[in-house]
């Protein structure tokens, strides 16, 4: 704060201060003389009045001196310079309203969001603008957008555009918003009125270059901050699945941006709909980490963590990927338990599908005898292996229904398999009718090898990077022969023996599939279980058949408002992106990738018709937007860049003249009273 004088020579009038001093010293002496018999009393009165006058007279002199000094000061044209809170608004005739619509502007204060408050203030400002003022509107979140293409005098249009602003889930790129404002000003000075919460540690610092550019342009930024004081918000920063007890653990990290500790109820919802409630105790402006144990069995997909926080609901949910946990139930019907492990399909299948147990492999195996097929639970079991079962007829209808409803069946051959029984029991679902059992070579010779599979086939795609040659070491000396069949889209030979006989045939039935392996998956007719391709082939087979729903799908994390690029497998056509509500989300294919932009947080899936999802996308809001605290202010930046911009000038001349008048009246009154007493 400082004082400047427009006419310093006016201070010379201060010399007139001698006048009141001289006048003060002069006293009037009465001319009449009067004999008085009570002089004792009069002397007492005079003594008393002098005591009072000791106070009054200096005040009188002071008033007169002050009046003269004030005259000199007023004549000098004083101006008071002091720092203002924000730059002055008004006068330029060119105004750009910049409204922050980032996620943090959804924070609720007194029943209204910050954006609602910003809209009201902006509308009030528009209402107060005189006609002829040119106004523009810019909104920004992750990027600034000029709502009006240029400055306009149509305030009604701008007012309507302000009313239509909606909060987004995006971040706060103030720099981008100010850049758009500068673009609207088109290189000429103007006023940028900023409605923002200025929240987050980076919003203002990253905008410094643009603030500087605007100030160099001669424009001023007038912030109208709508931040809550004190700030309050609870946000979920992270939710991630990892190893742990039972089926693993989801680690949830919550952050409290408020200044008071708070206990927040939260709920973890798994892809299968199961929910797990938790309570998080959050310290003031601190974080807390909660670990949620996942059940031994859970469907894979995208889970959700949601907490109750009335301040900023947008960041109260976090989506995380959850693999299939022990829930890929494979039912192996053991038709030939065998004397030794090498003669047992179950032995080899268990080691191929769940070598470390079901939790880690994602496959849980139930083994049963043929009679135990009654234990088939269509809701749980995804794949049924009929391993050398002698007579499937009692269960034929049930297996057929199971397959038609989406289950999968793998039939492997063996000594117990008889054509009549199988053809009769599974006629409607077998890829081809079984004719007989045929020796392909002497048992001692090891059998004939399998042909190289086509790795373009979805089943064998994992072998594209290697292992394809391993199929040539798969041999069989005995196999089932099939009656002639016509290959089609539904019936395909996936793998053949080197003599051209089918080794693995697929048939699509309803929503399910049936695979027929014409040899054994123990060492009875061939050496498949001993080959390197056995384990990946069996696991891939289970995956392929939908044993783990979406378990093979790629998993991507995304931020709302930012584009996601998902690489597409070969030959995939017409993929569709489904949003959190199950509806289609606009996407486009760019070469071997699919690109889309999530518009809201939640689980997105890239799906094909009648196939498991190709990819899961967990879209979340930007973490930094949960931080509703203000760190740096635009005004502070302006003050640092252009201190004069915030300096206010107060003309003191007029108040000084008023003060002179008041002082003159006061001294006149006091002099009058004083004269009557003396």
């Amino acid at each position, binding site marked *: 704060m400082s004082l400047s004088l427009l006419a310093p020579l006016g201070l010379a009038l201060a010399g007139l201060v001698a006048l009141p001093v001289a006048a003060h010293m002069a006293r009037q002496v009465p001319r*009449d003389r009067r004999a008085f*018999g009570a002089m004792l009393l*009069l002397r007492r009165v005079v003594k008393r009045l002098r005591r009072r006058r000791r106070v009054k007279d200096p005040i009188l002199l002071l008033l007169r001196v002050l009046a003269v000094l004030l005259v000199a000061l007023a004549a000098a044209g004083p101006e008071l310079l002091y720092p203002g809170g924000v730059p002055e608004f008004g006068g330029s005739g060119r105004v750009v309203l910049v409204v922050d619509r980032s996620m943090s502007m959804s924070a609720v204060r007194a029943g209204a969001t910050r954006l609602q408050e910003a809209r009201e203030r902006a509308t009030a400002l528009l209402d107060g603008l005189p006609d002829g003022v040119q106004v523009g509107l810019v909104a920004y979140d992750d990027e600034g957008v000029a709502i009006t293409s240029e400055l306009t005098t149509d305030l009604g249009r701008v007012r309507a555009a302000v009313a239509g602003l909606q909060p987004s889930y995006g971040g706060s790129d103030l720099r981008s918003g100010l850049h758009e404002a500068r673009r609207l000003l088109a290189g000429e000075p103007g006023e940028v009125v900023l409605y923002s919460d200025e929240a987050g540690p980076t919003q203002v610092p990253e905008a410094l270059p643009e603030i500087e550019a605007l100030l160099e342009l001669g424009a001023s930024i007038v912030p109208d901050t709508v931040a809550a004081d004190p700030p309050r918000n609870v946000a979920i920063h992270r939710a991630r699945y990892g190893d742990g007890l039972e089926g693993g653990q989801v680690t949830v990290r919550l952050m409290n941006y408020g200044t008071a500790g708070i206990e927040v109820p939260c709920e973890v919802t798994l892809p299968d709909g199961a929910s797990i409630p938790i309570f998080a105790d959050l310290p003031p402006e601190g974080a807390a980490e909660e670990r949620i144990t996942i059940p031994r069995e859970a469907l894979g997909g995208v889970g959700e963590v949601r907490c109750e926080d009335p301040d900023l609901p947008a960041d109260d949910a976090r989506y995380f990927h959850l693999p299939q946990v022990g829930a890929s139930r494979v039912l192996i019907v053991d038709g030939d338990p065998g004397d030794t492990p090498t003669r047992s399909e179950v032995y080899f299948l268990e080691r191929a599908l769940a070598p470390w147990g079901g939790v880690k492999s994602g496959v849980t195996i139930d083994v049963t005898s043929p009679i135990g097929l009654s234990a088939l639970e269509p809701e749980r079991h995804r794949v049924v292996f009929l391993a050398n079962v002698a007579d499937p007829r009692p269960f034929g209808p049930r297996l057929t229904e199971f397959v038609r409803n989406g289950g999968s069946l793998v039939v492997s051959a063996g000594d117990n398999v008889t054509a009549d029984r199988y053809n009769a029991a599974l006629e409607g679902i077998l890829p081809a009718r079984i004719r007989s059992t045929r020796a392909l070579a002497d048992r001692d010779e090891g059998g004939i090898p399998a042909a190289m599979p086509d790795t373009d086939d979805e089943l064998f795609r994992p072998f594209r990077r290697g292992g394809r040659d391993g199929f040539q070491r798969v041999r069989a000396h005995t196999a089932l022969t099939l009656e002639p069949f016509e290959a089609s889209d539904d019936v395909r030979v996936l793998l053949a023996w080197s003599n051209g006989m089918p080794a693995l045939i697929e048939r699509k039935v309803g929503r399910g599939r049936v695979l027929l392996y014409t040899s054994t998956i123990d060492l009875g007719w061939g050496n498949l279980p001993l080959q390197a391709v056995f384990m990946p082939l069996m696991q891939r087979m289970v995956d392929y058949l939908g044993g783990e729903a979406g378990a093979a799908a790629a998993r991507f994390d995304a931020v709302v408002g930012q584009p996601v690029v998902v690489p597409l497998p070969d030959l995939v056509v017409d993929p569709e992106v489904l949003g959190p509500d199950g509806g289609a989300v606009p996407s486009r294919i760019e070469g071997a990738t699919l690109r889309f932009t999530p518009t809201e947080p939640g689980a997105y899936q890239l799906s094909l018709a009648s196939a498991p999802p190709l990819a899961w996308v967990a879209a979340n809001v930007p973490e930094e937007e949960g931080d509703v605290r203000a760190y740096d202010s635009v005004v502070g930046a302006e003050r640092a860049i252009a201190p004069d911009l915030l300096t206010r000038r107060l003309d003191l001349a007029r108040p000084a003249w008023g003060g002179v008048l008041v002082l003159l009246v006061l001294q006149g009154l006091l002099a009058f009273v004083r004269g009557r007493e003396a």
Partner: protein
Amino acid sequence: MSQPEPIYDAESLARVRHLHLRARTLTDALLMGEHRSRRVGQAVEFADYQEYLPGMDLRGLDWRVWGRSDRYVIKRFETETELPCTVVLDLSGDLGTGDRARRARPDLEGSKAGYAIVLAATLLYFLHRHGEPVGLEIVAGEGIPHVSLPPRGGRNHLQLLFLLLATVRPGGQARLRDALGRVGARLRRRSWVAVVSDGMEEPSEWLPALAAFARRGADLRFFHVHDPREWRLDFDRPALFFSPEGGAELAVDPSGAQQAFDEVVQEYVDEVRGGVVRFGGRYLPVPTDRPLDEVVRAAVLDDVRALGAR
């Protein structure tokens, strides 16, 4: 004590006659209807009984009591004696002021001094008529030397006092502390004393001198003579006020100092009244616009009872 030199010029004698006339008029009005007369000698007022002891005067024996109770008791009576009365008159220069003082006929009429002189004469005459010996002490004044005439009876003595009162003029300074101290020192015990003064000296200085009166057992009346216009500072224009007794002049605008003056007067009166009462006296405010008969009546009616009791 020095005797005053009587002044027998015609003007003085006229004043004496005028003074005497006024005093007698006032006194007669006061005594109208009163027939009580003073008896010199044996007292008749019964006081109490006392057991007879050998050697006591047998004339006091109450034979009726002896007849009824066979006891010898002596009747005792209060004895009525003469009450020496002294009027102390302050005639310092300040008493000479008053709005009508300059143009008054006869001289001093309307001044505090004139009022005080008539008041003193009336008191003397009244007391004389009651048969009391009266004396006069004039403090300050001009035209006569310091007067101190002790109480005495007789018409001639009263005439002498009247002559002095008719001759004296206000002037000089009273120096009340010394004057009252002297008067109190030579006062006869159990006297009646009337101090007629304006008291215009620092009360804290002269009030302690009243202790001498208290020590002598005097029945003190303090007649505080003042000009009400002066005590109201009832003047319309600023002026240089001065005291006839000398001292610095003071330039005062009466209208502006009115409130403060009222406060000072009240404090001063309270101070004087408190001092007089503290030393056993009675304080009588006497504004000069009050009819003199009212003042004397108020004073003497109370005094009549007191004089009669002592």
